[in-house]
């Protein structure tokens, strides 16, 4: 036993959370991030924290980490020079994609950059049929020549994607062997290992992204591991994947494509942890930052997994939490378009020059300017006095927009927040209403610098009754890392009719997956009693191309298993599309096994609930815009860190803390729970 450490490495701050298993003691530490090499801040910050809290690296029993290294490399095009080997005649598939243009009406839009330039995409003669039979054997000489050419061209990484490799792996395996002989120093990704599912373009794109990010991620993780080892850390470090589970550094370095959503997933997992703490299992997360906002839905404590998503323009087939991202946040710019309507975004002011109120010379208003003008935010200083702002500049910027549409300044600023709220509500409808869930049955979990600022309006828009604001956003993520299961997913595609498939065939497919899971459990040193697996199958009507994931009951397979699958499928199809096609053939497509290991999770101790009076935390009052009475009204200001469990803050009020501000509107009250979360409800 010892300390469990969670580190969330963000763009601005690196948050470190330490949890002592024996005593339940929690300590947090925050240091500025080092974007050029995030491992510097992580190891440095950890060393500081350990020293400060009187422990040593040897005392760390677990190290969990969430990172944006892979996703940033993808956004900024900082992956490595990559080559592609594919079936002859199909090398341009990577560029053609699904032959759709990037924007329907904007003829000047560009596609996302193709990650492998045309001269480094090489077709090799070979052809497999859809049933896995070989029509044309692999031309090994041509493959060898391709490997040499790519080596000579100076690539660092090679992706291999042959048609139907999910049904016949031998050609890609031969390619791996030849590459290891001719070009052993290259990072190599083969599609049957990275994404063994049908649809060749998406599989190719996934494999290429993996190869493109591989050396970057490997370098980062090795560097971090070395630094941690040098410090004397003995615990095996783990990383959050896009599926919300953690995985060892070695596995993560081979499969960086599975960690592209590591950062946002950490937030969702943290919310899950929060749900476990507070007993609320139906949550919608709302993580609003400066330039973008992530939302996700957790039903009964689980977030839906999707098998494919387009991430920064690149299709990726990997298990990912169903996180929906909107390109809008506090820094989104506001303008009046040529038709006379107010628009928010998609452009953003960024950190510099930032919103008009920062006083760096911009005059275009942002969402933050609306909040400063309406005094939801402190009109003089942000970050508890660290950053001065100028309300007069915010006002002038908003007025320039208000004048154009003939509205008052306050009315326009209020309207800007309504538009932002509507955009966010739209995103939440995608993950709730569109998937058959009613947001009114869920609690809104607001975090990120701007989440708690907008949460009450958003909840009102969606008629959600309860809002949970964790103590601090970054720390929440770091804490989430302490509560995450070790987890990975295995999949296998084989089309079969529900009627025609025999129980022993289904058994065989899943035992194949079990076998792969067992190897992974062994490689992660997971004891037998901690190993958990869960089976699902993707089902559709024969002829459809989009499947619905259905749980497959544990235990031996028999005809009842198929009946259960059928029943679940029909129920889900009816819920999603409003009809079932009785009598039509039902087809099983992809079989999935989720393997996880219950880690020794941190269990936070509730603090005793005290008196409701929050007056000891009162730090002042100011006039803040109240949308109900459409005028400025005196709000009491409370210091979040001085509020203690049981304290109840009646709206209208503002609860201030260094990294965020919570607006408690009139008609609502926020109560501090035993874990220092704010629980806001109408009263």
């Amino acid at each position, binding site marked *: 036993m010892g300390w469990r450490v969670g580190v969330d490495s963000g763009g601005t701050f690196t948050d470190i959370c330490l949890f002592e298993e024996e005593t339940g003691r929690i300590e947090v530490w925050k240091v500025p991030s080092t974007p050029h090499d995030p491992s510097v801040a992580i190891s440095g910050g950890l060393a500081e924290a350990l020293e400060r809290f009187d422990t040593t690296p040897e005392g760390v029993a677990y190290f969990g980490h969430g990172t944006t290294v892979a996703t940033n490399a993808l956004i900024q095009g900082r992956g490595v020079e990559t080559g592609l080997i594919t079936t002859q005649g199909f090398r341009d598939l990577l560029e053609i994609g699904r032959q759709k243009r990037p924007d329907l009406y904007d003829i000047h839009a560009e596609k996302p950059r193709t990650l492998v330039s045309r001269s480094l995409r090489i077709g090799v003669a070979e052809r497999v049929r859809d049933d896995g039979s070989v029509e044309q054997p692999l031309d090994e000489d041509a493959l060898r020549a391709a490997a040499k050419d790519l080596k000579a061209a100076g690539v660092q990484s090679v992706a291999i994607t042959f048609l139907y490799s999910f049904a016949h792996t031998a050609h890609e395996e031969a390619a791996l062997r030849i590459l290891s002989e001719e070009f052993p120093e290259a990072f190599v990704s083969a599609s049957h290992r990275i994404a063994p599912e049908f649809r060749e373009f998406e599989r190719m794109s996934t494999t290429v992204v993996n190869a493109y990010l591989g050396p970057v991620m490997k370098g980062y993780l090795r560097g971090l591991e070395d630094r941690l080892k040098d410090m004397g850390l003995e615990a095996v470090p783990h990383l959050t994947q896009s599926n919300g589970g953690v995985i060892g550094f070695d596995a993560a370095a081979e499969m960086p494509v599975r960690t592209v959503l590591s950062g946002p997933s950490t937030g969702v997992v943290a919310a899950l942890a929060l749900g476990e703490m507070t007993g609320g299992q139906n949550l919608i997360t709302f993580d609003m930052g400066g330039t973008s906002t992530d939302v996700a839905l957790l039903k009964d404590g689980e977030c839906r997994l999707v098998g494919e998503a387009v991430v920064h323009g690149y299709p990726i087939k990997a298990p990912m939490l169903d996180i929906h991202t909107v390109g809008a946040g506090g820094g989104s710019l506001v303008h009046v378009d040529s038709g006379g*309507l107010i628009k928010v975004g998609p452009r953003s002011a960024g950190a510099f020059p930032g919103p008009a109120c920062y006083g760096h010379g911009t005059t275009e208003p942002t969402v933050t300017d609306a909040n400063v003008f309406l005094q939801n935010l402190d009109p003089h200083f942000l970050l508890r006095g660290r950053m001065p702002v100028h309300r007069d500049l915010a006002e002038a910027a908003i007025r320039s927009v208000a004048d154009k549409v003939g509205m008052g300044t306050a009315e326009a600023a209020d309207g800007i927040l309504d538009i932002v709220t509507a955009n966010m509500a739209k995103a939440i409808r995608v993950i709730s209403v569109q998937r058959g869930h009613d947001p009114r049955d869920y609690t809104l979990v607001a975090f990120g610098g701007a989440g708690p600022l907008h949460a009450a309006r958003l909840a009102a828009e969606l008629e959600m009754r309860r809002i949970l604001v964790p103590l601090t956003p970054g720390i929440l993520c770091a804490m989430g890392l302490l509560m995450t299961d070790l987890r990975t997913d295995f999949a296998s595609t084989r089309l079969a009719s529900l009627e025609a498939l025999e129980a022993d065939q289904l058994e065989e497919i899943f035992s194949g997956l079990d076998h792969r899971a067992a190897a992974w459990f062994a490689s992660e040193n997971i004891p037998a009693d901690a190993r958990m697996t869960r089976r699902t199958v993707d089902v559709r009507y024969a002829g459809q191309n989009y499947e619905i994931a259905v749980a497959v009951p544990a235990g031996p397979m028999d005809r009842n298993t198929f009946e259960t699958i059928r029943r679940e499928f029909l129920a889900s199809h009816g819920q999603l599309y409003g009809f079932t096609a009785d009598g039509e053939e039902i087809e099983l497509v992809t079989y999935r096994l989720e393997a996880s290991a219950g880690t020794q999770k941190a269990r936070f101790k509730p603090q005793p609930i005290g008196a409701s009076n929050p007056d000891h935390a009162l730090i002042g009052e100011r006039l803040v815009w109240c949308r109900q009475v459409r005028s400025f009204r005196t709000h009491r200001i409370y210091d979040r860190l001085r509020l203690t469990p049981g304290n109840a803050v009646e709206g209208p009020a503002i609860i201030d803390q260094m990294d965020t501000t919570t607006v408690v509107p009139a008609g609502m009250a926020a109560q501090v729970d035993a874990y220092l979360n704010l629980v806001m409800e109408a009263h």
Partner: protein
Amino acid sequence: MAQIKQKPPAVENRSLNPITIEVIGSAFASIVEEMGETLVRSSYSTNIKERRDCSTALFDAAGNTLCQAEHVPMHLGSFIGFVPLILRKYGIDGLKAGDVFIGNDAYEGGGTHLPDIVIAEPIFHGDRLIAWAINTAHHSDFVDRGHAHIYQEGLRIPPIRLHRAGELQQDIQDLFLLNCQVPRERLSDLRAQMAANRLGVRRMADLCGKYGVDTVEAAGRELQDYAERRMRAGIRTIPDGIYTFADRFDCEAFDTLWDFSVRIIVRGDEMELRFDSPPQSRSPMNVVHTALLATVYYAVKSIVDPTMPPNAGLARPITILADKGTVLNCVHPAAVDGRLTSCQRVVDLIHGALAPAVPERVTAASNGSCFDITFSGQRPDGSFWVYLETIGGGNGARFDKDGLDGVHVHMTNTSNLPVEALEVEYPITLLAYELIDGSGGAGEFRGGMGIRRVYRAEEACRVHYGGSRMRSQPWGLNGGLPGASGGFRLSDGVGPFVKGVGTVNAGDIIEVFTPGGGGYGDPTRRLAAAVDRDMRDGNFTAKTAAVFQSKEGVA
């Protein structure tokens, strides 16, 4: 002739401020998008589920577009005629909640070609008709037909009720399915279309419940006024003047060349476009008026302001003229199945005409076509199978950028079908799918490359292929060179094919190569680094390299 309406720059109705309008407009957009996802995800036919050849929209009670989802611009042509026809035929009093109308005819059904089946459902609030949910799906059917006139092209359906107050009219459905070659797919696609509309009806009811029906309707009107203002503001940025452009049209259906031309008058914030084309012909390339309207609305929006909302208001400042009975404004009984390819050339005409006025906004000619290929045959049990696909090509080069390679341009925007899905469902093998070296027109910015797609039939089947720019080349702009022509090539002994139609046997190979886009600007001004990259990547062949030769010193 429409009057010039001087609109105030801001909305006057105080209860309906710009914020509410923006919020409700965003709700409309989200409803049509969700309708589209429902349609795609619940359908069975490859043309919908993978190729997404379908569109969804909301219309107001009077039949004006409130919002169209971003799928296929051509489909607007099927929508704008449909609701007005229903209203004329049945009257508002003849409608009930739960009625569902089906139609496709180009002359009596508001459609632009017969396979695009439109399904529309009126949305009521109490007794009041407030809007329409509408969608169209290209049913991959009515294949291997003649195209001398529309009676050869498939079943003609005027707007009739498929459901009457919520009850399926089995007789109608039976009649429809009996006339289809792949009835199982047709039925499932109809179900998916129904599901999409029902969702639209439900979401609109929620929206009215939230904001009040008067506010939603008023916002719908304001959004159309708003789109009109955006369009006028956009047109105003084009210098006044008369702009003309002419081009020649070729296709697989006939040996002659057609002259197409446009004369555009820009005056203040209004635009008039007059199109000249030959008399309508006994070929599938004729275009009905609504298809021409949808094409011009797309082209003008994409040139003047691509972000204006896609609703009926944007049409108000635009006047579109073409003589009746000509290819670009055909009347009964002209065949229309291949209208999309003609419409692609209409977009190119508009770009060509406006190039002198706004050179930075237009592109050189794109592939100017919608290459399509359809395979059909019979299974051992006697049932039909049909596989249809369309293939993208080069996008014209732009003022400051190369054209996009291998994409669908302008009026269409369908996806390809993955090889690994195609070969599982149909007796066809794909031997190659790649960009064509050297097919993009050279220029300071090069045109996009065309696509080469090679099929091998695994069984005897009937094939139809079609496209344009096979006997001409997509033009370049400002000294840019033209893109390569497209075409079809059959392996030895295959055919004969007449007007793109023929029979193939197992093992026969068909190769399609689509045109590239035209280049923009003098090729000698192309940066040396870009030329080097082109040569390394094989985007140009050694032969074409000569055009860049005076590049020394430029980079």
